[in-house]
């Protein structure tokens, strides 16, 4: 058994059949816990006439009604403040408050017990250990340590593994780069957008991230970029480092991760989460690879605010292969391909914003920033792509734009109005970027 590459060799190589049995056992356990301890869940399930004992087989799981983010927001208007009666433990047992970023509306508040907090670090330990984090590593955390979940639990997981952890909280980007240089940090964690912003800033400071810093690996989260080929390539080339991806969410936890062998695919931690993929239109369960659908996810072991069959709206697809690493956890291909809310029809064509990002960032003369705006002109959809040309390439604008239009047409089947903006003028983001604006809905 290749124990040195696994956080838990028993769980990570469990035969699929046993993994499925474990998932059923844990699903039943959290369902009963929620029904017995969370007034929200009891009320909700009772309204469907469902009791925990009704779930006997794996197939029965689909009888359990899904929850949605709006329900999590609504329940917050009830007592106990600020979480509402979804809470399944006495308020006194909540030791950690965090919240979602609010990108899609009112933030959802997340309360965790000490055990939940430990559990989150445990989930992240699976991720970081798989991504070769070890006690020899000095890991920098360039994020604002505040109410957002972000990398808090990665910080504790890195400590748990035994890494030396350097918190880069209140420093600005320049300060963070100087601190990483001073301490010869060899790893850091950030959103893909911020990885690129840091690299760009370092170069402005006369520091070449590849030559003058010691970064060997970077773990990304918060946005899909590290699973988009051209964005990943940009980061790798800029930093000369191995790029890893991870997907998680505040109300769910850290549910997936790339390993050194998985490329653009990610393992789902199936011992701690149940991931179901549903057809976007029919809701039918998708088991086969390469078919996109919406993720419905269950968190097995988080007790303060259970998350059972949560309709995440993230669009993912199963991969059609297993991983060389030997983990039996199933792989998803290409990370989160989009949000069910964002994947939208423009001029009658289904468009995923990640496809536009892949094209923009595959053209080396363009900066990493872009913005997509969809509007209506009369009855017709109109789509504008704002881009920046890197300094030194302005004279080649016509040729660059022609290449961009062709690639976009090829990858997305759509024509775009292209707007060229001065280099550095489009918004730069530290955390979650909002580059896709569908103004038809407003």
């Amino acid at each position, binding site marked *: 058994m290749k124990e040195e590459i696994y956080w838990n060799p*028993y769980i990570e190589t469990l035969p699929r059949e*046993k993994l499925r*049995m474990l998932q059923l056992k844990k699903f039943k356990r959290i369902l009963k816990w929620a029904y017995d301890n969370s007034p929200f869940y009891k009320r909700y399930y009772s309204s469907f006439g469902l009791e925990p004992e009704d779930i006997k087989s794996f197939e029965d799981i689909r009888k359990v009604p899904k929850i949605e983010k709006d329900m999590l927001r609504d329940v917050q208007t009830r007592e106990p403040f600020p979480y509402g009666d979804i809470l399944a433990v006495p308020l006194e047992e909540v030791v950690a408050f965090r919240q979602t970023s609010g990108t899609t509306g009112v933030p959802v508040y997340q309360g965790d017990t000490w*055990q939940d907090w430990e*559990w989150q670090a445990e989930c992240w330990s699976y991720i970081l250990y798989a991504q070769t984090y070890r006690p020899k590593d000095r890991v920098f955390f360039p994020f604002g340590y505040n109410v957002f979940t972000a990398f808090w639990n990665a910080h504790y997981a890195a400590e748990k593994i035994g890494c030396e952890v350097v918190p880069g909280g209140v420093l600005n980007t320049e300060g963070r780069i100087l601190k990483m240089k001073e301490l010869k940090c060899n790893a850091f964690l950030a959103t893909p957008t911020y990885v690129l912003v840091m690299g760009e800033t370092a170069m402005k400071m006369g520091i070449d991230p590849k030559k003058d810093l010691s970064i060997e690996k970077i773990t990304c989260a918060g946005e899909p970029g590290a699973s988009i080929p051209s964005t990943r390539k940009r980061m790798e080339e800029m930093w000369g480092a191995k790029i890893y991806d991870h997907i998680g969410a505040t109300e769910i936890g850290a549910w997936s991760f790339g390993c050194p062998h998985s490329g653009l695919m990610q393992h789902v931690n199936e011992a701690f989460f149940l991931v179901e993929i549903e057809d976007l239109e029919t809701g039918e369960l998708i088991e086969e690879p390469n078919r996109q659908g919406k993720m419905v996810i269950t968190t097995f072991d988080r007790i303060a605010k259970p998350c059972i069959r949560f309709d995440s709206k993230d669009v993912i697809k199963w991969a059609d292969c297993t991983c060389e690493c030997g983990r039996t956890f199933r792989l998803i291909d290409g990370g989160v391909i989009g949000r069910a809310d964002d994947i939208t029809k423009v001029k009658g064509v289904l468009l995923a914003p990640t496809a536009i990002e892949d094209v923009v960032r595959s053209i080396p003369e363009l900066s990493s920033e872009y913005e997509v705006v969809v509007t209506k002109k009369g009855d017709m959809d109109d789509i504008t792509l704002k881009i920046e040309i890197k300094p030194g390439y302005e004279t080649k604008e016509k040729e660059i734009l022609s290449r961009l239009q062709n690639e976009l047409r090829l990858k997305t089947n759509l024509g775009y109005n292209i707007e060229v903006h001065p280099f550095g003028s489009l918004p730069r983001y530290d955390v979650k970027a909002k580059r896709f604006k569908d103004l038809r809905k407003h």
Partner: protein
Amino acid sequence: MDETLAKLSERIRELRRLSEETLKIGGHIQTVNKNVKKILANIKMLELNVCDLVELEEEGKN
């Protein structure tokens, strides 16, 4: 069943028993109360990682 897992699971159950007993005896003392609760949270992680697998095997036999 894997022998190592079985042995580990036994020890982890013993750790829980001892921790809960400690809490009963000294739970009124804040430092005992909070530190043992932290220990119990870590024991829970061991149960998720080890004992669940052993229980699964045991349930499969019954």
